[in-house]
């Protein structure tokens, strides 16, 4: 149809200018100026992955929120993040002491500290914060942090209505006095966590839920919350009136990019100064880069067994499964330097015992299975192994499935559930084997061991052992690290060998990329990112 050749011209008319325009356009608008009027030279650009659900430190539960909170606020006590044992350093409290059985603690508070609206910091603001954290109306998930305080649990559960009955008060000298109803040798450690930070009741009452907006929020940390551009970025600015050493970098620009590969692209094109999460599959490549940093963190990755669902109710079967998994193979596959562990407490924490727990032993595993009455493996029921939707979990699960089939000749079916569905099934009827992980809230072994007690809210194994519970309670009341270690060793032996209620897989590792121009980037086992001391070249 030659008479329609005119469209060719039309086509060219449309497309030519477009083709010329595109590159031109990109070259003329390209500048190295940052958003929000920030300058590159004194701005640290990080990725916090998601929008923080809230910056209200009494109510937030996620790592993104606490990253921001750790930089804009401060607690009574802080860790020395450089120290391998995380020695406690004074922050808003200058001194603290307890009675001999760790049931009464006294904190002397720093004087002359001012919030960024000029109001002075007082002990009552700490009490206000704790009252709000424990108040059932606040509905905070972290209320249990203070449960060791006298009557705190009862107040949180609503059986006591009057907060004055809870064991915390300000004495005549303005010191904070705390009474516990169970001894806790590590109580000060809890006060490094953002949920226990002081609050400004007047500000919260005035602005309600919106008190965390940049124009309302009042803080006293090294940085101020300057801009919160929802779903896009958060900008922090140095607090010039900070009581301690002022932050080295003027601004922090935190983007919210939740796709790791996209974040890596941004880093590689010079748009980000650091990455806290790397695409796990590419670790093998990324490891060779000079920007790469790696640190073991106090977090474990484990599989729990539903000890009430046959055949998992037979301890021999559970032991056989633990014996049948080569953890080394899993960590080799992940290529991220994870450390295989057979005990419950991760390395770097008191109570880590490399020789406790059942190790990889195919012969023993098969013997146990035979003994449990499954000589004929075809009579062994198909187990379900569930995990929540995520690429890494899927890979680990697929590997475990293959290992169990190869080593024990049993078949495992994988069940991949979306997080909320997963939580629901965990609390109602967990699969034979389920995946979970635990990241330390504070570097004390009790934080790990407490999970598996019979009265824990997170023990989905339904495994109960009174001796274990007893040991845990004894250990909390013990001040001598050497004695505690002995107690935890025995408890872990009960949990991982005798009862075999869990299959600890490995201690997790944080992988980071930090740009060359950044110095002193916080890389620590607690995965806490405090940017006060970071410098830019």
């Amino acid at each position, binding site marked *: 149809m030659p008479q*329609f050749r005119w469209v060719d011209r039309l086509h060219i008319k449309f497309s030519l200018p477009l083709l010329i325009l595109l590159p031109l356009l*990109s070259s003329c*608008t390209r500048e190295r100026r940052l*958003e929000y009027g920030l300058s590159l030279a004194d701005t640290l650009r990080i990725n916090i992955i998601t929008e923080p659900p809230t910056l209200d430190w009494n109510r937030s539960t996620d790592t993104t929120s606490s990253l921001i909170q750790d930089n804009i606020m401060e607690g009574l006590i802080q860790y020395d993040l450089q120290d391998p044992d995380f020695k406690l350093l004074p922050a808003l409290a200058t001194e603290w002491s307890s009675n001999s059985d760790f049931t009464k603690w006294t904190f002397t508070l720093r004087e002359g500290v001012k919030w960024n609206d000029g109001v002075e910091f007082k002990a009552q603001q700490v009490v206000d914060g704790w009252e709000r954290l424990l108040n059932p109306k606040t509905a905070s998930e972290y209320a249990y942090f203070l449960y060791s305080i006298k009557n705190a649990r009862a107040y949180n559960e609503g059986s006591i209505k009057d907060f004055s009955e809870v064991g915390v008060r300000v004495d005549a000298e303005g010191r904070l006095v705390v009474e516990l109803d169970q001894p806790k040798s590590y109580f000060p450690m809890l006060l490094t966590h953002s949920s226990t930070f002081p609050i400004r009741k007047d500000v919260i009452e005035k602005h309600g839920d919106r008190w965390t907006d940049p124009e309302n929020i009042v803080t006293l940390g090294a940085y101020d919350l300057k801009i919160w551009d*929802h779903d896009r970025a958060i900008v922090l600015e140095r607090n010039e009136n900070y009581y301690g050493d002022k932050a080295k970098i003027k601004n922090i620009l935190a983007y919210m990019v939740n796709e790791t590969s996209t974040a890596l692209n941004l880093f590689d094109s010079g748009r980000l100064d650091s990455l806290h999460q790397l695409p796990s599959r590419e670790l093998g490549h990324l490891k060779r880069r000079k920007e790469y940093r790696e640190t073991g963190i106090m977090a474990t990755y484990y599989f729990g067994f539903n000890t009430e669902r046959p055949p998992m109710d037979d301890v021999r079967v559970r032991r056989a499964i633990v014996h049948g998994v080569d953890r080394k193979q899993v960590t080799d596959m992940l290529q991220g330097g994870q450390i295989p562990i057979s005990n419950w407490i991760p390395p770097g924490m008191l109570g880590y015992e490399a020789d406790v727990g059942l190790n990889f032993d195919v012969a023993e595993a098969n013997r146990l299975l035979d003994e449990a009455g499954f000589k004929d493996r075809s009579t062994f029921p198909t187990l379900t192994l569930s995990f929540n939707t995520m690429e890494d979990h899927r890979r680990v699960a697929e590997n475990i499935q293959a290992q169990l089939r190869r080593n024990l000749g049993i078949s495992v079916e994988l069940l991949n559930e979306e997080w909320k569905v997963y939580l629901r099934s965990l609390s109602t009827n967990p699969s034979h084997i389920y995946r979970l992980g635990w990241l330390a809230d504070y570097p004390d072994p009790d934080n790990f061991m407490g999970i598996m007690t019979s009265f824990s809210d997170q023990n989905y194994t339904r495994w109960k052992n009174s001796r274990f519970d007893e040991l845990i309670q004894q250990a909390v009341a013990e001040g001598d690290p050497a004695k505690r270690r002995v107690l935890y060793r025995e408890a872990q032996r009960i949990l991982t060998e005798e009862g075999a209620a869990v299959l600890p897989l490995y201690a997790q590792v944080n992988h980071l990329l930090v740009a060359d121009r950044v110095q002193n980037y916080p890389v620590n086992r607690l995965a806490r990112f405090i940017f006060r001391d970071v410098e830019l070249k």
Partner: protein
Amino acid sequence: MKLVSRLKENWKFLMGWGLLLGSLSLVVMSFFALPIPRALWWLTGSLAAVGFAHYTFSQNLVVYVIKRILEAVFVIFVIASMTFLLLRVIPGGPFDTEKALPPEVIANIAAKYNLDAPLHRQYSDYMLGLLRGDLGESYKFLGRNVAQIVGEALPVSLQLGVYSLILAFMIGIPAGLFAASRHNSFADNATMILAISGVALPSFLIAPILIIVFAFWLNWFEVALWLGPEYYILPVVVLGTSPAAIIARLTRSSVLEVIRSDYIRTAKAKGLSHQVVLYKHVLKNSLIPVLTFSGPLVAGVLSGSFVVEQIFAIPGLGRHMVQSVTNRDYPLILGTTLVFSVMLVLANLVVDILYAYFDPRIKLS
């Protein structure tokens, strides 16, 4: 006086151009992230409103339009109800956490979000809220209400969607015409295979390729984020590919059909020049089916935006739509769903009316 009378004669013409120029400058200015004067919004908006009103009245479409709007309200109502119910059926609740909370705390949360009320009560409360224009508070993002979240994300998604559609039409229609003009030639086949290719790859496979080529190798555009023209182009191209391909195929088939039709033959037989036949008859008539298709196209672009928003870290509505389901953030799921539905319904309404405008044979009633 003369000017006034001339204006009077040509006001429709002027208004049409005004509207066109207005919306065009809006698009261009927003693309280059220039500050848009409020007056321009008002001017374009009122031109559109006046034009629409005039058209409605002059064509006796008032009843039709009102009927359609009522229908739309009904559809939105049903969708809100359906989604509301579906949300209660899906396993997992908004406040399920890894650590079991004390019953008192759970009761308090339930009371705060009205989740302790009987279902019908929750439903009627939500619906009454909707009538007042209240979409509720997000469960996940404390202190932010859904209207605010949607209000911040929608403009971004709209920008992305509108640019992609414009790109799709700019590429699709000429490509379709080109293919049709050389029907059954090599060029035709090649164009059509290219067009099919446009829909043959998931956009999450196209995007990384484009990023590597245009952002890393050529260094023309940015790899992600949504801050200016150099950020817009890649996501817009990715999102626009499949609509462009669809439009190209539709244009081709409808041009072929029009060319074959009797009235074009008659026009040619009457000795009208090619140019006249082409521009006046073929082009206009063959674009009508393409136009009707823009309704579903809007829907497609909207639902596709999630992938693009995810890969390019664009703070749009698609991301909220998926993540709110993951969080079981009921009010936010409902809010985003309703906003999307309203846009779909509106797009269909506008398309139907435009359809009648361009094709006088269609009678709306």
